[in-house]
């Protein structure tokens, strides 16, 4: 199954084409070729979201996956993130869920809240 796709690895957004034998054209760097192959075999994404800060009024702390996770698991992982709340102070890198759903990715805090 050949496919046309846009590389999302960097803001340049090259238009890639990948054929049945996984030959990639249109990429300006090797990361684009790898992206197209992964996208056909095992697409992955970074996700960012928020968790509630219990001891602050109307306040959310932002979080992200420590590494990219399989695209098909995005909504399941968001459900896990929704169950979490934290207390301030929060620090960048604090782990709020370890190895979320066995993906090998932690959910970590991305915001300093005093």
């Amino acid at each position, binding site marked *: 199954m050949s496919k046309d*796709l*846009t*590389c*999302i690895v*960097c*803001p*340049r*957004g090259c*238009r890639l084409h990948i054929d049945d034998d996984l030959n990639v054209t249109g990429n300006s760097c090797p990361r684009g070729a790898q992206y197209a192959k992964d996208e056909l075999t095992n697409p992955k*994404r*970074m*996700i*960012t*979201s*928020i968790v*509630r800060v219990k001891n602050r009024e*109307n*306040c*959310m702390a*932002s979080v*992200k996956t420590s590494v990219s996770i399989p*695209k098909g698991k*995005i909504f399941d992982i*968001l459900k896990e993130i929704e169950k979490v709340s934290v207390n301030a102070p929060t620090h*960048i890198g604090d782990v709020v869920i370890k190895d979320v759903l066995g993906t090998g990715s932690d959910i970590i805090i*991305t*915001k*300093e809240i005093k």
Partner: protein
Amino acid sequence: MLNKDLVIIGGGSAGMAAAIEAKKNGVDDILILEKDSVLGGILNQCIHNGFGLTEFKEELTGPEYLQRFVKQVEELGIEYRCDALVLDVTKDKVVTYSNAEDGVVSLQAKAIVFATGCYERGAGAIQIPGDRCAGIITAGTAQKYLNIHGFLAGKRIVILGSGDIGLIMARRMTLEGAKVLCVSEIMPYSNGLNRNIAQCLTDYDIPLYLSRSVSKVVGKHGRVEKVILSAVDDKMKFIPGTEMEFECDTLLLSIGLIPYVSLLDKIKAEMSSTRGAKVNDYFETSIPGVFACGNCLHVHDVVDFVTDEGRDAGKGAAKYIKGLVEKNTTILVKPGDGISYVIPQTITNKNADSITFKFRVRRPIQNVFVTFEDNGNEIAKFVRPVLIPSEMVMLKLNQAQLAKIESGEITVSIKERK
């Protein structure tokens, strides 16, 4: 009255970078005034990743990027006040702010850097036809409600405008459980990055309609009930018979950003077509000792370049305070064919090691020269395979090239390569 060497208005990416650079260049008496309760500006609400590729060779989220600068501000012992809204500035550089603890305070500054960011165009700016009702808000406001306070602005959403903020919010609201019905763009192309179209719309099957805009909002009972989109012709007039109806509770607007310059306007700083102030090669406005940088000078799409510009303005302010500004000429820099604006608008120091010019093209073009000309004489020429309006271009002239300028005016233009 209190005295300060340097007062920086706005503690976002531009303001923090300016403060850090001024401090490194020997200015110790600095105060950053920020109206919000924390430093960092707009990046506090940009929780997605993609920041810092140029600056740190890493992809960071907005809050992670800003924290690296907050840390430097604190380590360098730079004084800052949050919840401090600057109310007034005079030509003589008296800055007045209000803060719950300090009350209303006036300071005499030797130099001022404006780093006040930009604001979003709202519904009033484009006169959306139909009912006046709740549920029409700007994408940035919805982003703040959600990412900072945890409130989802609506459940069924139509987004008008396909710039990056609109695209990012389409994904963000989808991830938090809202149904984003479509993104509508009046132009025949999106101003957002390809990458954001792919990862924010295509990934979640959100349709993007080009050459379409809102022809009517229906909301008889106080809240948006329906949005009608119609195709537009090449004169941006609605084409009858092309209506598409969407039942929704919210219309998000992502229709442009405008530099926030009311205080600069008040002291009559000369304004440019960017709707920010005109500046010289030190990032100084037409008012001596008053500098501007970041989104309040011209709207940026990449924060790394905002940081860079903040540093340049900080350096300029430090030179001004120390009396090291060298001004030996006045050369106007004009946008020529195919170019919408160029910054800086004037060159005052021909002996600089180099000067970087920033500009945008008017429409997407391929295979061109960018030329710098002095009365028809070519000073420099650069080859560019592709240029698009949504990407700011930066080109540097070195000392030898600057020395070639003889008249009081240079023009930057786009020329086709034959």
